[in-house]
């Protein structure tokens, strides 16, 4: 380790934010920094996983990271025997998830693991398509079994059926066994999640490095565009909305969909006409599975899927209906995308010598073969499966409320999954004995205290990294998925020591182009409604289901994310400049700042602060326009026009100083 490179804050020196003292009680001890491993742990790099868990992890939601902790790492360490890496460790710091990769640098150990790895990984690569087909079968079967798990409140009396069928066990027993099945099902899906992912990322990384070594200036984005699939399942939900918007115009119900109001009101209006009923029927046909589309990364129960909250898809539908009415073509230009992909890859290939071109061809062909898994697993796992999983947990929460131990369906998310076992046992015992227990007070007190602590943790801003950075970061998952490499670490170190007068910060150039505009810092999905057309989205992380936003923003900047993160993929899809993995973007930028986002170089420049006269004037104009647009009935077209005018006003204000 180079001594002059600097270090991040020592994880053992991080204090609990006021009001969150004792937060550690919400998490299992094996995920906390403790004195036993201090000598080792404080000498490692720990980076904040804002990609999957930008918020403090709810104790129940910790199921997700804990599931991947075992599945991903078993594949790396025990199944594949990756010669150069052990697993990725997790720690919780003030509720936030931090990760630390482990490399193997002992040549003897690498040599010992290599033949095992080569044989096993080769089997998967050589049989990839067949294994992937089976994977889809396994994943959908796992989802089907998850769907079939039902939680029902314990009735006053055991149903007569138990007696008449002489089954022996009771519905209370079912509750516990079904809960076990729920957890097992989550674990099972986590294994499928990583069954092929590590290898696919490794393949991608190999191609990326090959391109970089031959074309030092190549951006990650260009490599991704050479590889990216054209018909990717992840784009299906949005594609279905576009199709439904076109159908709505055909059926003459476009105005009803564009009408202001909650989706429920829009739906009841549609029910009044045969055409509206027809459209609703078509909507219902696509909901399963395409509306199992989380508004987050799929790791937090609070980010509901479209199927549970129709506001995001209906907002998108309004916009799409307006665009169809303006005769815009909404379908993705598949032929154009295919040509673009070939133009890029043939362009780079043409610059290589013959023997290099052969290696390029071989790598690209294999990476394109394995990459659909990377792109599609996201829908199967994070969106479809995880959304159903959280809904099942919510159902169980309602059962506990009915059982008298909690007050709200979502109280369950403040309990670790093993605490829920304990609670379910107590509930079964109460039901069995037939008299109240002290748990009806103690569980409620615990939840109340945890809600307070959680709110205090939410207000804390986790640093991008803790501990001591290694010389270089090479672990494939860390590099490919999290976008963390030696450069990232150096940028973060620079950002930590940055001068407050500095008006520039850097991230990964994730999607090309340059845009200027007013910043909107969005930390939570529900803040998206504040966004005005033409603004620049600055967020911890974006999720693909924020598609409605991507159609309206000028550029995206995210604290986290790698080149294969959702923000990067969707920005390229929408042809917006995007800079990801800035580390501290949401800390440095304030809503109302005028920014320039350079998606070619990864530089974000603050042109004017919101408190500066120029920035403020621009922003005030926007607010007025927004209010005016809202008063005018919030027609999507009007809002877009207002956004453009406001943009022009802000530009004028910006140049007049």
């Amino acid at each position, binding site marked *: 380790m180079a001594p002059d490179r600097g270090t991040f804050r020592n994880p053992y020196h991080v204090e609990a934010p006021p009001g969150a003292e004792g937060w550690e009680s919400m998490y299992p001890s094996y995920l906390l920094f403790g004195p036993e491993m201090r000598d080792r742990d404080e000498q490692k790099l720990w980076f904040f996983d804002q990609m999957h868990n930008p918020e403090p992890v709810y104790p129940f939601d910790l199921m997700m990271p804990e599931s991947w902790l075992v599945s991903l790492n078993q594949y790396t360490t025990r199944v594949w025997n990756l010669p150069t890496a052990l697993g990725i460790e997790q720690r919780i710091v003030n509720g936030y998830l931090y990760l630390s990769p482990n490399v193997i640098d002992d040549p003897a150990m690498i040599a010992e693991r290599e033949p095992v790895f080569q044989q096993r990984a080769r089997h998967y690569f050589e049989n990839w398509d067949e294994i992937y087909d089976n994977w889809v079968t396994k994943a959908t079967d796992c989802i089907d079994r998850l769907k079939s798990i039902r939680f029902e409140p314990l009735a006053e009396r055991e149903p007569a059926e138990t007696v008449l069928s002489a089954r022996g066990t009771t519905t209370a027993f079912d509750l516990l066994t079904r809960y076990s099945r729920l957890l097992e099902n989550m674990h099972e899906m986590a294994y499928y999640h990583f069954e092929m992912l590590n290898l696919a990322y490794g393949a991608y990384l190999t191609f990326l490095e*090959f391109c970089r*070594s031959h074309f030092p200036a190549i951006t990650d984005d260009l490599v991704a565009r050479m590889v990216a699939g054209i018909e990717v399942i992840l784009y299906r939900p949005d594609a279905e909305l576009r199709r439904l918007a076109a159908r709505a115009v055909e059926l003459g119900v476009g105005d009803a969909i564009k009408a202001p109001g909650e989706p429920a009101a829009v739906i009841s209006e549609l029910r009044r006409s045969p055409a509206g009923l027809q459209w609703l029927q078509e909507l219902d046909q696509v909901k399963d599975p395409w509306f199992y589309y989380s508004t987050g990364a799929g790791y937090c129960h609070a980010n509901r899927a479209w199927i549970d909250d129709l506001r995001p898809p209906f907002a998108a539908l309004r916009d799409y209906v307006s665009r169809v009415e303006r005769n815009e073509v909404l379908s993705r230009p598949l032929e154009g995308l295919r040509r673009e992909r070939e133009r890029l890859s043939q362009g780079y290939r043409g610059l290589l010598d013959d023997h290099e071109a052969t290696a390029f061809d071989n790598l690209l062909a294999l990476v394109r073969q394995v990459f659909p898994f990377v792109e599609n697993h996201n829908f199967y796992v994070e969106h479809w499966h995880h959304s159903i999983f959280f809904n099942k947990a919510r159902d169980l929460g309602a059962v506990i409320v009915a059982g008298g131990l909690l007050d709200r369906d979502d109280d369950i998310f403040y309990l670790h999954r093993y605490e829920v076992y304990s609670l379910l046992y107590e509930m079964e015992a109460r039901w069995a004995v037939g008299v109240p227990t002290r748990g009806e007070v103690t569980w409620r007190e615990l939840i109340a205290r945890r809600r307070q602590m959680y709110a205090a943790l939410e207000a804390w801003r986790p640093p991008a990294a803790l501990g001591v950075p290694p010389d270089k970061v090479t672990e494939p998952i860390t590099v490919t998925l999290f976008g963390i490499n030696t450069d990232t670490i150096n940028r973060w170190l620079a950002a930590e020591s940055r001068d407050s007068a500095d008006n520039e910060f850097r991230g990964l150039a994730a999607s090309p182009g340059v845009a200027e505009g007013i910043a909107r810092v969005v930390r939570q999905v529900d803040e998206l409604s504040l966004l005005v057309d033409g603004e620049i989205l600055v967020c911890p992380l974006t999720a693909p289901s924020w598609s409605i936003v991507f159609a309206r923003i000028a550029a995206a900047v995210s604290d986290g994310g790698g080149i294969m993160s959702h923000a990067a993929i969707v920005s390229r899809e929408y042809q917006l400049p995007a800079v990801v993995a800035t580390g501290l973007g949401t800390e440095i930028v304030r809503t109302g700042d005028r920014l320039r986002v350079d998606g070619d170089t990864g530089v974000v420049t603050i042109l004017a602060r919101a408190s500066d006269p120029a920035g403020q004037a621009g922003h005030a104009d926007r607010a007025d326009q927004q209010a005016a647009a809202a008063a005018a009935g919030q027609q999507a077209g009007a809002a877009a026009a207002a956004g453009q005018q406001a943009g022009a006003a802000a530009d004028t204000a910006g140049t007049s100083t």
Partner: protein
Amino acid sequence: MTRPRGGHDRLLLPRYVVATADCRAEHVGEVGGKAAGLGSLLRAGQRVPGSFVIAASAFAEYVQSRAAGPGGAASQQRQAAGEEVRRSIERSYAALGGRHGADIPVAVRSSATIEDSADASCAGQFMTFLGARGADEVIGKVEECWISAFAPHLESYRSQRGIAEAGQSVAVIVQELVDARVSGVMFTQHPRTADRSLVVIESSYGLGEAVVGGEVSPDLFEVNKITGQVTQRSLGSKAAEHRLPTDGRLVQRRPVEAARREAWSITDEEIAALLAMATELESALGRGLDVEWAIGTVESDGPGESLFALQVRPITAEPAHRARGAAPAGSGIDLILGRLSGRILDGGAP
């Protein structure tokens, strides 16, 4: 007597004056490297200012005629040959004026016939005169080129060693002068990293001398050949420019005013045109080229601006990855398993 003499010529050209389009690499001994470069630009379909080349054989005649001294039959023969050279230059110069037919301003440059132009013995041999006008002035400048090549070797000449035999010889290029609004240098791969996907452009105001001579700090652009995107830009100070005055005589150096210094010297459209030139040249001449270019007008063609290619030569730097070892062989699976086993592909650092 139209045949050149001189011991080392592999090629016998029909005249003392050669059409630039006929100058090829194998004629370097007779027309020089610069002329061969110009010839390759023409054959690659580039717009090049009109020019002709006075071959090294004419220089040899000139040297011999000086050696013969006045009087005698040999002297008369030499003088006849000198007349022939002179008339060829006059005719070719008149032809350069094209339909305008006027005495257009030209650059007169020597074109080294020796491969290694950095050789110390050639120092001072390569002269450039910008802005000569009229046949007499042009011939005068051609002679100056000859003299400048000739002067360092006066001693050897006096000791009766023929210039041609000593391997010292010079060709001269006469080329219509572009009144360049902006000009510069372009590398068709990155000069430092040897990244072939990049075109690097340096540009500054006025004639190229300011950039080539390192006199000003130019604007710098890096352009991705495949996407056409400008991936880097840096603004140069561009403090001075060399321009051709309206009377076309004596190129002048003048300061560039602040507003132009702070603006980009070329537009995105012009960058795109340069990129197209780079791509065309690479497909015609091979990879890794160093190109001099200018955007401006030529008198023979009226007031409309064009992009001109002025010179081309290969870049010699080896790509970084090839310097580190051979490209990996094997199937995609082999390559990936190798990388994941900790072997680094082809020198690329993770």
